[in-house]
């Protein structure tokens, strides 16, 4: 059994002496580079895997949350007496019942647990109820009488600057003026553009859910699908007025997370109800509540001006970027830093001037969603590159090739790109890939037209377009975030186990941890223990952190165990441990004198080690947007092929060809799955995903109103090339792979629709009326 490119990459670093193992039958591949399956894959596909919504405790109560029906209102009074009087209701909590800090927030504590005087977005929690039946809890929540004085909502981020403050912290969450180069520089050719990006929802397959169980010591245990158990524990403990040690967050299976999962606005009240009633309390959000409560991708308005010389080389990029942060800060400051820093894209631009703002509005809250900031600017700068190519009469690929960034070039933040940046090679790979065949317009040919299987598509009205985009994202937290993770590896009874608080959100960390230990120790059976906040912190599952930071910690710990294992052996044979090699479950010495199996050596022993990984520190952007803010960067090139019915404006993405800079392939099958998932999410952003609001009220917060790509909407995803140029500072030399396809795909689809229709396409998701064109020869 061979699996893709691992034949060369699977070999451990250093010269591997090839033992006399040639003639044996190949064992099931394990270790780095193998396509190991997740341990829980079969339980998840069969539906037996317990998620938080499936948990049960003896005598549990059900929670319901009362949410604001208004986007902006003053709360005159809250009367809970009717709810409390209802049979079966055990507790009703409001702002006055929060014993500790009444405010919380992932970065800035600016969000109340329960709205006190004012509600700032549709769906903001006002009170929570625990009752003996979910319907009783919902009815009781509905029976809480809240008197509102409805205020005019601020929904246009452009007007937020001049409106009275929506929050004591003011309406401006962050402003970054990035200045790089000479402000007076001008190019011979100038193109302008205005771009609008909609509000994408993470739309996890499983809505938020949790179970809170009171502890005998007065603390509480929260069973939730947290992606950052320690941060969520600290937030909750502060609000309960408890020491962090008395709150334990136990991570259940995560049913889908493309952003920060588990809205603390729901988990904190859940624990509060358990503390007050002394009984377990369970909560399962409806799909509507899920849409209203969790954070969305920042809707963004971008104004761009690109200057180039007559040869098409970029001279200057000017941009204004306005992020709609919603009512609370959350991670908007970080999203803005990414948007401003990557505003010019993976291109060499000598002069860059960007102003970025994140402002408060009464729209649904924005926060961390895969590729935040970078995705919005990618759609805009790639739109500008297409415009520039059209104006110069150049091929869009040729124009991009003339400007691509490489290792050693400077980002507009003044930071040098030290990691591999094979941008030109990626673009070449997708350009040189043969285009998918045009379908034949015959009744026999199976051609899925835009509009679908039984749709109205007509071959004569369909135009095919090809578009290209280049995208980049940063990995790990930026701007001085303390990135650290701790892992413990233990070998006992011939098996290994890993304790690390890094949550496997579906990105495959648990599988990777098993592969790392297999690789280093040669032990095939590796268990990754469930995660809770009593373990040492590993940080959030976001921005491709865990492959690097937690994977690095697991590797170090495993190597320490390996030394403990090999040291006595080496001493016995009078050689240093470095001369021993573990491969294929066998320990061999360089000269072949010693040959034993791992199983034999670990039998009856218990070895363990704990290690930390802390990548090199970063610094915040200064007042002119300069600084070494990022640890690492990842790049991708995507070519989109679309069919557009130019009369109806319906679009089908036929194929997405992806070339990605991955550093090193650690698990080929998981990597492919991550790229396919990312591309599909990006196609959703490009064509349909937009949580629409009307004057701050979310319209149709359900999966009928918010369409997601189905199997028919998802294109063929072709992974054309994976460039394995190891990043020397990253663990294993690998780069995070999930976010960059999300960032790049929407821009590629927009470029292809532009090519098919000749329309500007400056709004995502692309509306049908923006994709209609006059019939005529394709141009």
């Amino acid at each position, binding site marked *: 059994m061979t699996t893709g490119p691992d034949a060369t990459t699977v070999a451990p670093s250093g010269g591997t002496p090839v033992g006399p193992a040639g003639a044996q039958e190949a064992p099931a591949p394990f270790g780095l580079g193998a396509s190991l399956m997740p341990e829980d894959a079969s339980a998840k596909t069969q539906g037996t895997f317990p998620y938080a919504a499936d948990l049960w405790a003896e005598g549990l109560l059900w929670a319901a949350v009362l949410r604001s029906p208004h986007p902006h209102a003053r709360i005159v009074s809250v009367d809970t007496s009717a709810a409390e009087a209802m049979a079966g209701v055990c507790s009703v909590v409001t702002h006055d019942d929060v014993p500790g800090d009444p405010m919380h927030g992932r970065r800035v504590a600016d969000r109340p647990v329960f709205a006190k005087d004012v509600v700032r977005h549709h769906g903001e929690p006002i009170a929570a109820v625990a009752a003996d039946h979910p319907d009783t809890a*919902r009815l009781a929540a509905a029976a809480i009488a809240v008197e509102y004085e409805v205020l005019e909502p601020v929904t246009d981020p452009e007007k937020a600057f001049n409106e009275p403050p929506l929050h004591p912290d003011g309406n401006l969450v962050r402003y970054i003026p990035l200045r790089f180069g000479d402000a007076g520089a001008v190019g011979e050719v100038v193109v302008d553009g205005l771009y609008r990006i909609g509000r994408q929802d993470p739309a996890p397959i499983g809505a938020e859910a949790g179970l809170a169980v009171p502890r005998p010591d007065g603390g509480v245990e929260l069973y939730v699908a947290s992606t950052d158990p320690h941060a969520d524990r600290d937030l909750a403990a502060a609000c309960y007025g408890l020491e962090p040690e008395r709150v334990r967050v136990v991570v259940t299976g995560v049913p889908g997370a493309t952003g920060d999962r588990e809205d603390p606005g729901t988990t904190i009240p859940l624990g509060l109800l358990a503390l007050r009633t002394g009984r377990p309390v369970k909560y399962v959000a*409806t799909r*509507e509540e899920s849409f209203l409560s969790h954070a969305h991708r920042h809707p963004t308005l971008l104004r761009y001006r690109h200057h180039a010389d007559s040869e098409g080389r970029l001279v200057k990029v000017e941009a204004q970027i306005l992020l709609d942060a919603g009512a609370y800060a959350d991670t908007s400051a970080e999203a803005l830093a990414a948007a401003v820093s990557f505003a010019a894209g993976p291109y060499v631009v000598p002069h860059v001037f960007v102003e970025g703002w994140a402002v408060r509005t009464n729209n649904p809250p924005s926060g961390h969603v895969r590729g935040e900031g970078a995705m919005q600017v990618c759609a805009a700068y790639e739109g500008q590159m297409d415009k520039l190519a059209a104006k110069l009469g150049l091929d869009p690929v040729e124009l991009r090739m003339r400007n691509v960034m490489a290792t050693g070039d400077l980002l507009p933040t003044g930071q040098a790109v030290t990691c591999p940046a094979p941008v030109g090679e990626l673009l070449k790979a997708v350009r040189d890939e043969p285009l998918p065949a045009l379908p034949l317009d015959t009744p026999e040919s199976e051609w*899925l037209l*835009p*509009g*679908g*299987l*039984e*749709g*109205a598509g*007509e071959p004569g*009205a369909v135009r095919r377009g090809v578009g290209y985009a280049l995208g980049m994202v940063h990995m790990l937290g930026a701007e001085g975030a303390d990135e650290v993770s701790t892992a413990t590896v233990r070998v006992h009874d011939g098996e290994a186990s890993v304790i690390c608080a890094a949550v496997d959100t579906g990105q495959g960390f648990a599988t990777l941890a098993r592969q790392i230990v297999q690789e280093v120790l040669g032990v095939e059976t590796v268990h990754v223990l469930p995660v809770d906040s009593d373990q040492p912190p590993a940080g959030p599952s976001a921005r491709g952190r865990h492959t690097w930071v937690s994977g690095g910690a697991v590797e170090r710990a495993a190597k320490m165990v390996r030394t403990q294992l090999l040291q006595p052996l080496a001493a016995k044979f009078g050689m240093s441990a470095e001369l021993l090699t573990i491969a294929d479950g066998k320990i061999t010495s360089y000269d072949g004198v010693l040959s034993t199996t791992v199983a034999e050596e670990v039998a009856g022993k218990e070895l363990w080690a704990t290690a930390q990984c802390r990548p090199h520190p970063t610094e915040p952007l200064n007042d002119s947007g300069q600084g070494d803010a990022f640890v690492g960067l990842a790049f991708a090139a995507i070519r989109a092929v679309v069919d557009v019915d130019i*009369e*109806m*404006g*319906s*679009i*089908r993405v036929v194929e997405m060809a992806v070339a990605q800079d991955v550093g090193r392939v650690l698990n080929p099958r998981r990597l492919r799955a991550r790229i396919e998932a990312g591309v599909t999410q990006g196609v959703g952003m490009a*064509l*349909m995903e937009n949580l629409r609001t009307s004057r701050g009220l979310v319209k149709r917060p*359900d999966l*009928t109103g918010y*369409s997601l*790509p*189905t*199997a*028919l*909407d998802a294109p063929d995803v072709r992974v054309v090339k994976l460039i394995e140029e190891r990043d020397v500072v990253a663990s294993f030399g690998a780069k995070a792979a999930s976010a960059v396809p999300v960032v790049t795909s929407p821009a590629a689809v927009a470029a292809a629709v532009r090519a098919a229709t000749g329309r500007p396409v400056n709004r995502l998701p692309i509306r*049908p*009326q923006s994709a*209609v064109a006059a019939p005529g020869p394709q141009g």
Partner: protein
Amino acid sequence: MARTVTLPASLDEAVAALSAMPAAVPVAGGTDLMASVNSGLLRPAGLIGLGRVNELRGWQYQDGHALLGACLTHARMGRPDFAALIPGLAAAARAAGPPQVRNAGTLGGNIVTAAPTGDALPVLAALEATVLLLGPEGAREVPVSHLLTGMDPLRPGELLTHVRVPLLHAPQTFLKATGRTGPGRATASVCVVLDPARRGVRCAVGAVAPMPLRPLEAEAWVASLVDWDGERKLDPEACTAFGEYVAEACIPAPAPDDGSAESGTLSAAVVHLRRTVAALARRALGRALA
């Protein structure tokens, strides 16, 4: 939740159960109804499950008409044998949602729910179908359009049992725009039905208004152009003109109520909807005559 759930085994039992408790709601596929119940929009006093009533499931022939049971699922109507009978309804059934919904959702449910986006509705309107209602005061037959417009609504205790559809033995087309490739609700849909015996072209537009709309003048005009005894072909220009005629008729310009609005300037959304309906109607007619 509903306090009583009845599972009648025959049509008579079902009618009796509904007469006994007119506030109860009959449920067949439940694809629309249960979504309303689950979201708390509907709290029926009782449910009458129609799944065991065999009389409502199949279809039979009756003097040039097909009598379709109200519990025919979309999946069943989409099959080739049904498509040979009433191709327009089969096309609409195949276009209605994902397989899970088509397997459960029924023809009768589509009519009674009367959602503007109901895919079967424009086809039934174009076919000038009638529905058979059975209630405590006996049976009656009502044109489907009278039911949908509320001219002659369902009376308390009445059950929609069958749909009577004329068999026209001529091409019928149903086309739907959803704005996506996967299954979705219609933003506009058009059904075109040829009736060679009466030398008529009938057309209905769905999803653009609360009920399907019939552009009667456009129908009459285009029917007069068709050579019914010959090849039944039309110039592409005539099809285009028909499409625009239909779009103009079904999507009127918004009334200039704010005084300042100059007539003639339409919002981008209205322009796009008109363009979509015109393209659908042109394609539907072209394919029916091809």
